[in-house]
Structures are given as C-alpha cells and as structure tokens.
C-alpha cells in the first residue's frame, strides 16, 4: 500500500514570497490533516479536512495560510506571503475515517526555510 505522498521535500524561499505544498493521502482515506512542526516542537495541527470539507481550521493563520481539498483527495497548502517564523516542516497526514481516535499516517513532510 502506498503511503502519504508530499512534494516538494525541500523548499527555500525569501520572506514575502509565496509557496505551495502538495499532499496525496493514502487511497480511500477520507480525512486529511496538515501540521506545522517547528524544530524541537511537536506537530501543530493547522487544518483538518473530511473529504472536501473543513472540519477544523482554528489554528490556521488565515491571513497568510490557505488550504484546499477540492475533489476530496489530494490537497494543497499555501503560504502567501511567507514570514521568517514559517520556517518549519509541514506534515500531511491521513486517516481512514473522521474521528479523534483514528490512526494518522504521516507523509515525509516538506522542509521549508524562509530567508
């Protein structure tokens, strides 16, 4: 079974530039999550989708971050404009169904460095 795919794996940009990350979850997984993991910290949930609807985006900085999952499969996360403090690993995860008790399968992450 293929895992969660993410691209790019690495990205270096200058502050105020825009960047987009892509995630393809495990086939058949209804729920998709985006996390931000700053070095030395635990992952912080940014947004959770069930199919193509948003379940929780309470910790998404909506003035600069946006995410979509238009067809209920793959998803993109965008930052516009980027700030220095956005340097982190952006992890995508998926689970079979919605629910806090569901096992989440993580992708390899995208490492973003903002200069």
């Amino acid at each position: 079974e293929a895992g969660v795919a993410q691209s790019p794996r690495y990205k270096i940009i200058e502050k105020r530039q825009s960047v987009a990350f892509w995630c393809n979850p495990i086939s058949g997984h209804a729920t998709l999550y985006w996390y931000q993991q700053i070095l030395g910290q635990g992952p912080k949930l940014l947004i959770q989708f069930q199919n193509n609807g948003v379940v929780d985006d309470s910790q998404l900085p909506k003035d600069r971050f946006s995410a979509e999952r238009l067809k209920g499969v793959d998803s993109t996360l965008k930052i516009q404009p980027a700030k220095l403090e956005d340097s982190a690993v952006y992890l995508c995860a998926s689970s079979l169904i919605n629910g806090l008790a569901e096992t989440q399968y993580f992708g390899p992450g995208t490492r973003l460095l903002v200069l």
Partner: protein
Amino acid sequence: GQQVMQIPQYQHVQEGEDFTTYCNSSTTLSNIQWYKQRPGGHPVFLIQLVKSGEVKKQKRLTFQFGEAKKNSSLHITATQTTDVGTYFCAPSAGNQFYFGTGTSLTVIP
C-alpha cells in the same frame, strides 16, 4: 485550553537501560495515542489507549493510561539503539487533538 506536559524533554541512556516518558494533562482525556519520530523522519503511530487504567504492551514497550485518564506513560525496557527518536503523546479531549512536546531519547551504545 488543554494543557499537556510531557516529561522529560530529553533523556540520554546507556544501551540496555530502561526509559520512561510521561504525559500529563490538566483535563480528562478521551483517549491518548503515542507516536515515535526518528531523527529527520515523520511521526509513526505506536498505540492508542482508551480505557481508564489500560495497559498495553508491544515487545519491550509498555503503555499505561492513568485511572483518572489525565496521564499516560511509555516505558521501554532494555533500550536498544533502534529506540532512538522523539516520542510524542497525542491526547484527545472533547473535539480537540494535540501532540505533546515530545521526549527526545538518545541511546548510547
């Protein structure tokens, strides 16, 4: 909001020694998951605990959920170099799900 403290933040052990990490919450939890993240890697699911006082074992790993469902622990017996990584608890309370701050384990051969 939910307060989750994971201790210790770092732990260095000699290979063969035991290791324990603790996750403490200020509120009653619905359930708790544990994940392991190798250096440079991504979190990998280890276990989920749901019932009060629950104990689960996976080979050398023992997971416990407190009677009050406010704390949990992960104990590794006779650590090996393959146990190196950061261990995160991920509790759920109500409709919220968090990752703890993690405990970074270093195993000295």
